[in-house]
């Protein structure tokens, strides 16, 4: 692969600095701004040409500001690349479901504890079995709770506030959620009956694919001050939840993609790729999608909240008698598939823009009003999950993010091998055995699902994190290592 890349990728891109490569504005006809791909030399060798094409395609959309960007974990998606970030003017720009993806508000949350690795290791197998039992996962998984239509409407509008009011969590969970677990502006009337039908039985389910619940321990602290503020210390047990809005979100995207496909024609927007269907930001079609997207985003926060609640119950049942209050506090919850109306400084002036992050994490610096009070002097926690069996990182958002990436960082490791090849080349049972030899236990509904998410199919999360760290977008606070994984 790299030899082919020597010829194509290097010919196209211009080096800006060691971690930034530019897609020139004349690479494709119709580009309104240049592209910027944030990768190191190591990651550039793994970059696929399709990713560059997709970055260039996004640069053709009306009202795009500064650059069409790809984060260091970028790989080809549909419409936008995964790892794509773009901001569009509130009035002259567009809103595109392709810039959010089907799994609206797929995201990650990290929960800390007062437990140590030594407390948990002897009971790890039983703990994993209990978590696997408590949290429905896999294709077509149904929740232990079924909400009615009125409750679903409340979830769409009130997000995590609904969950806390109904006993799934505590008030301070809200403070440590991006957008307080409730993006304002939801309109459930823009969500179809189909999306509602899919959403009702799935609140509190992991789903499938790369989604997971992982029991981990903090193995390294890079930034003592920030770690203390985030309540993290070496040897401490944490757990992480990665999932999104399930069928409800997929259906919202599917429904509105069809509307916006027609709207693109109506508003005569030249699309370099059909999956980039969009409409002027203030048009009825775009706003209808945005209001429905917010419903799905709020649903996703509730999904992760309910899974956290059930996981807390499992931890309590194992350790509370011996250890008392386990201090299972939410460190933070970040969305990595979402569009938001935000204020950013562009050419020296504050402007309102719709920032699309598709496989990218918000990374606001210290002092930003959306960073929770207790982290305000530090910066927003940026949670970067590793692939199964590898390290995850906690970073803090830094000022350079506002200058370079509209307050955004990477979201994970980024695939390099297809699911098809992974299943062909790797055997789930063997990977499970190898991970066990490293002290990592995996629970999944199918062994083949372990193969398709094996560590080998992803880029190294540390290479990806080094890029945003070295650019000063988000700097390393702590590294956590997996002990046990419940795979979706």
């Amino acid at each position, binding site marked *: 692969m790299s030899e082919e890349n020597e010829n194509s990728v290097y010919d196209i891109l211009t080096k800006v600095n060691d971690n930034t490569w530019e897609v020139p504005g004349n690479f494709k006809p119709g580009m309104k701004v240049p592209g910027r791909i944030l990768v190191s030399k190591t990651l550039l060798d793994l970059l696929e040409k399709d990713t560059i094409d997709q970055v260039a395609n996004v640069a053709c959309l009306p009202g795009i500001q500064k650059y069409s960007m790809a984060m260091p974990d970028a790989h080809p998606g549909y419409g936008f690349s995964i790892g794509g970030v773009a901001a569009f003017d509130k009035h002259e720009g567009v809103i595109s479901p392709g810039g959010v993806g089907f799994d609206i508000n797929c995201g990650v949350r990290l929960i800390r504890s007062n437990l140590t690795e030594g407390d948990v290791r002897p009971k790890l197998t039983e703990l994993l079995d209990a978590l696997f039992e408590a949290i429905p996962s896999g294709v077509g998984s149904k929740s232990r709770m079924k909400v009615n239509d009125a409750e679903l409407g409340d979830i769409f509008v009130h997000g995590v506030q609904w969950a806390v009011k109904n006993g799934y969590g505590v008030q301070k969970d809200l403070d440590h959620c991006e957008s307080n677990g409730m993006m304002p502006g939801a309109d459930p009337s823009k969500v179809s009956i189909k999306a509602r039908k899919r959403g009702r039985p799935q609140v509190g389910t992991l789903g499938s694919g790369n989604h997971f619940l992982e029991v981990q321990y903090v193995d390294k602290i890079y930034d003592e001050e920030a770690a203390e503020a985030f309540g993290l210390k070496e040897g401490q047990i944490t757990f992480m939840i990665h999932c999104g809005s399930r069928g409800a979100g997929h*259906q919202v995207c599917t429904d509105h993609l069809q509307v916006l496909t027609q709207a693109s024609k109506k508003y005569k927007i030249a699309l370099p790729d059909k999956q980039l269907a969009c409409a002027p930001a203030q048009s009825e079609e775009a706003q209808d999608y945005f209001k429905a997207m917010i419903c799905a985003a709020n649903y996703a926060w509730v999904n992760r909240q309910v899974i956290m609640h059930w996981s807390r119950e499992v931890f309590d049942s194992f350790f509370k008698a011996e250890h008392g209050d386990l201090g299972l506090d939410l460190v933070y919850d970040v969305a990595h598939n979402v569009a938001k109306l935000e204020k950013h400084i562009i050419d020296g002036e504050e402007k309102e823009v719709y920032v699309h992050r598709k496989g990218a994490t918000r990374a606001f610096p210290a002092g930003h009003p959306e960073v929770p009070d207790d982290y305000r002097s530090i910066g927003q926690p940026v949670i970067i999950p590793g692939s199964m069996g590898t390290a995850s990182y906690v970073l803090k958002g830094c000022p350079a993010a506002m200058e370079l990436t509209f307050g955004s960082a990477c979201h994970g490791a980024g695939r390099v091998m*297809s699911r098809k090849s992974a299943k062909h080349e790797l055997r789930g049972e063997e990977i499970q055995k190898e991970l066990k030899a490293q002290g990592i236990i995996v629970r999944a509904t199918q062994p083949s699902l372990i193969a398709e998410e094996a560590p080998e199919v992803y880029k190294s999360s540390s290479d990806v994190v080094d890029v945003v760290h070295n650019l000063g977008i988000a700097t390393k606070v702590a590294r956590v290592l997996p002990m046990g994984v419940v795979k979706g």
Partner: protein
Amino acid sequence: MSSEMKGAFEYLEHTADAKFRAYGTTLEQAFENAALAMLNVMVDTSSVTNSSSVDFELSSPEIDNLLFDWLSEILYLFEVEEMVFGSVEINKLDVSDEGCSLSATLSGETIDHSIHVFDTEVKAATYNEMRIEKTDDGWMIQATVDT
């Protein structure tokens, strides 16, 4: 993925998702095979007993919209009917400048995890690199589904 061998469809390389080509002597058959290609990403359709069926109709402005709707509707029915489908049949497919439509019957059974071994979940159909082309032998459909 046993049906892949029979020339009805084949899977192509794609980093994050499932991309396939489906073939048919008629457009109807190519649509049916595209649906089977997508379903086999999730479950081996030959393990399904086709004991009950669901009928539906769809209409869309253009043929690519119809293909997107077709694959999306099957995913929707899979999830809400809690049924796994082993057979898909297009009863009627109309394509004209005024619009496109189809009526279809899906056959299968209620999901039973002791019989049906689920593989990768398909989240959604996409327009990514979608192609619907007339060939010397009939029709070829290329589609990518989000997994």
